[in-house]
């Protein structure tokens, strides 16, 4: 009997036999990822362009396919306020937001990390007011880089779905919250064929959340009481230790995903970087455009590649140094703006490579800020300009 069962399990496990493909937007893919993760509590507040995630989840629930406790509070602030103790009580928690909503949560983002609550949240990257706008721009989430959330940036609907599930696996293994970022419209609203993994296989990939410490009247543990300087200091150290484990844990989670479902996304992806003297470095949907530009430049005989930063926080410094070793020019494309600094990825990459032997020249370009279109031809032009000039210390507006 057990042999038969084992054989049946072996047939199922890792083969992804129950997978099917649907035409989905990035938002729908996020919702499917959440559905497959089987969260128990899901507080959520609507905001453009995240709203379809909310609506898809409530539709799943109406259809009886999603049994999480959905809470619809009056603000994103209350959404995150509800997420944290729900997670501390031992429930798996998912939510999604965008732009102003993420900013309204800011105080609670710090609180969630401090509470070591492994919440997973999707953020649809959208411009931050004022003035009002609805375009893809990553300033919203990059402005949260010091809140203690792990941050992933995805390029496609498929990657969004896969990343939500990988995010839960990483979050619950290091007990830190994870933010999965996808660009407004380019990813959130564009449709593409997305493979939905078999729920049985996802359950095997992502075991039930069962934290040792939790709010439970049978355990009588508490969270939030005032602490001493020393306790606070040690707590921050433990958060840093958890953060340091993230690149490895994400790599493992991605490798296991690849083995089970046949595709992976890496921590840092190197696209056509063999012998490259110039490398474009960027995040999110810009990577898709950069691939086309890189292909064109390779076709023209230029040794240009792409480094896609999928994990932004913690910044995978070792992987980035390895990816950029021997490269002459790194061209960073930032679809965000930190006034007085320029592009956030540019700043981060310079810090990451500081002191590295033979570090590339790092050119920072503010490209696509405010959702301005950046077609492949523009990226080719940016690369040409960068290769022919010295890197500027300050921001370079490129369009």
């Amino acid at each position: 009997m057990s042999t038969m069962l084992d054989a049946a399990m072996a047939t199922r496990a890792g083969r992804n036999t129950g997978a099917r493909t649907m035409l989905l937007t990035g938002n729908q893919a996020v919702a499917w990822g959440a559905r497959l993760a089987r969260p128990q509590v899901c507080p959520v507040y609507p905001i453009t362009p995240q709203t379809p995630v909310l609506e898809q989840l409530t539709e799943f629930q109406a259809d009886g396919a999603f049994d999480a406790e959905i809470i619809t509070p009056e603000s994103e602030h209350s959404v995150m306020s509800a997420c944290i103790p729900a997670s501390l009580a031992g429930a798996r928690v998912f939510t999604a937001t965008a732009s102003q909503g993420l900013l309204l949560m800011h105080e609670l983002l710090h609180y969630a990390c401090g509470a070591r609550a492994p919440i997973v949240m999707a953020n649809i990257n959208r411009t931050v007011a004022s003035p009002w706008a609805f375009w893809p721009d990553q300033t919203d989430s990059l402005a949260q880089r010091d809140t203690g959330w792990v941050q992933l940036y995805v390029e496609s609907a498929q990657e969004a779905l896969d990343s939500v599930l990988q995010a839960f696996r990483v979050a619950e293994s290091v007990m830190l919250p994870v933010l999965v970022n996808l660009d407004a419209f380019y990813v959130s609203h564009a449709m593409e064929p997305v493979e939905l993994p078999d729920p049985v296989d996802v359950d095997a990939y992502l075991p039930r959340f069962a934290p040792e410490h939790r709010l439970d009247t049978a355990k009588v543990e508490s969270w939030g009481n005032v602490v001493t300087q020393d306790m606070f200091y040690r707590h921050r150290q433990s958060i840093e230790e958890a953060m340091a484990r993230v690149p490895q844990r994400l790599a493992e989670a991605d490798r296991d995903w690849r083995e089970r479902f046949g595709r992976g996304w890496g921590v840092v992806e190197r696209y056509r970087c063999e012998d490259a003297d110039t490398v474009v470095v960027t995040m999110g949907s810009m990577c898709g455009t950069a691939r086309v530009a890189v292909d064109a430049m390779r076709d023209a005989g230029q040794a240009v590649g792409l480094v896609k930063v999928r994990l932004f926080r913690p910044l995978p410094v070792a992987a980035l140094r390895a990816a950029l070793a021997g490269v002459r020019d790194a061209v960073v494309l930032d679809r965000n703006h930190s006034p007085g600094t320029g592009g956030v990825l540019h700043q981060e990459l310079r810090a990451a490579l500081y002191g590295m032997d033979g570090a590339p020249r790092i050119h920072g370009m503010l490209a696509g800020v405010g959702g301005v279109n950046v077609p492949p031809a523009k990226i080719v032009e940016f690369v040409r300009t960068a290769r022919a000039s010295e890197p500027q210390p300050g921001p370079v507006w490129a369009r």
Partner: protein
Amino acid sequence: MMRFDLGQDAMLCSGHAACPGCIDALAARHILATMGPDTMAVIPPSCMAIIAGPQPMSSLKIPVYQPTLESSAAAASGLRRALDAQGKRDTQVLVLAGDGGTYDIGFQCLSSAAERNEDFLYVCLDNEGYMNTGAQKSSSTPRYARTGSTPAGKTSRKKNLPEIMAAHGVPYVATASASHLPDLVRKIAKAKTIRGTKIVTVLIPCLDGWGLPDDAGLTAARYAVECGAFPLYEIEDGWRYTLNVAEKTRPVAGYLALQRRYRGMADDEVANLQADVDRGWATLVERAAASQREGARAATE
């Protein structure tokens, strides 16, 4: 002297960090004992958070989650739903918040939770100001009271929280006072049996912030009830009023005279407060009578 025993096991331990003589601890002791051990507390920054004690100690024998100041009702919602998802429907969620965290900064999410009728008991320990930060005004501070931010006396009225919460149509809203412990305990016990959002406001005279002698907390609380400045009543399902102490037995002036925060009030200001109290009282009496008539009619139909 009347004696009122706890009746259940203590859930608030001795050695807690309340100011000497503070009746916040007395109220919390009875509230917690009535709620019992299968309860989780949500305690935002407030005097109660101090009373709960610093890590790794806790004066409460139940799990405590301390949220941000403005998010108690949202946090209680999240906790409640997590318990529901785990099948722990009988575990109680109890918020112990101050008036700053309730009337002011936490009001938005409280209104939202009440609108959703989330299943928890929200107790506002109302000391009519930001007493934990040294006595500044909140929207619960009454007119003419002097605080750190209203040194010449507050010019606007105290917000009527019970009425506002009742207007949400929640199943249970009540006021209570540690000076009337059997009534307080009965209300907590009653709230415990009701599913949905229950809001109980408990008046807590702050010895320091109100300018009271160390032994005058209970007297001030009793005077507040007896003069009608803090009437004890219940509102069920948003419309059914019950007045628990049916007579006003002393003038407001005697209540004010106990407290240094009302020092130097002019006679016409005292008269204004008396008029406010009389008007509020008349409204309550009217609504309680109307509720009784409605109840009698429903019973005969």
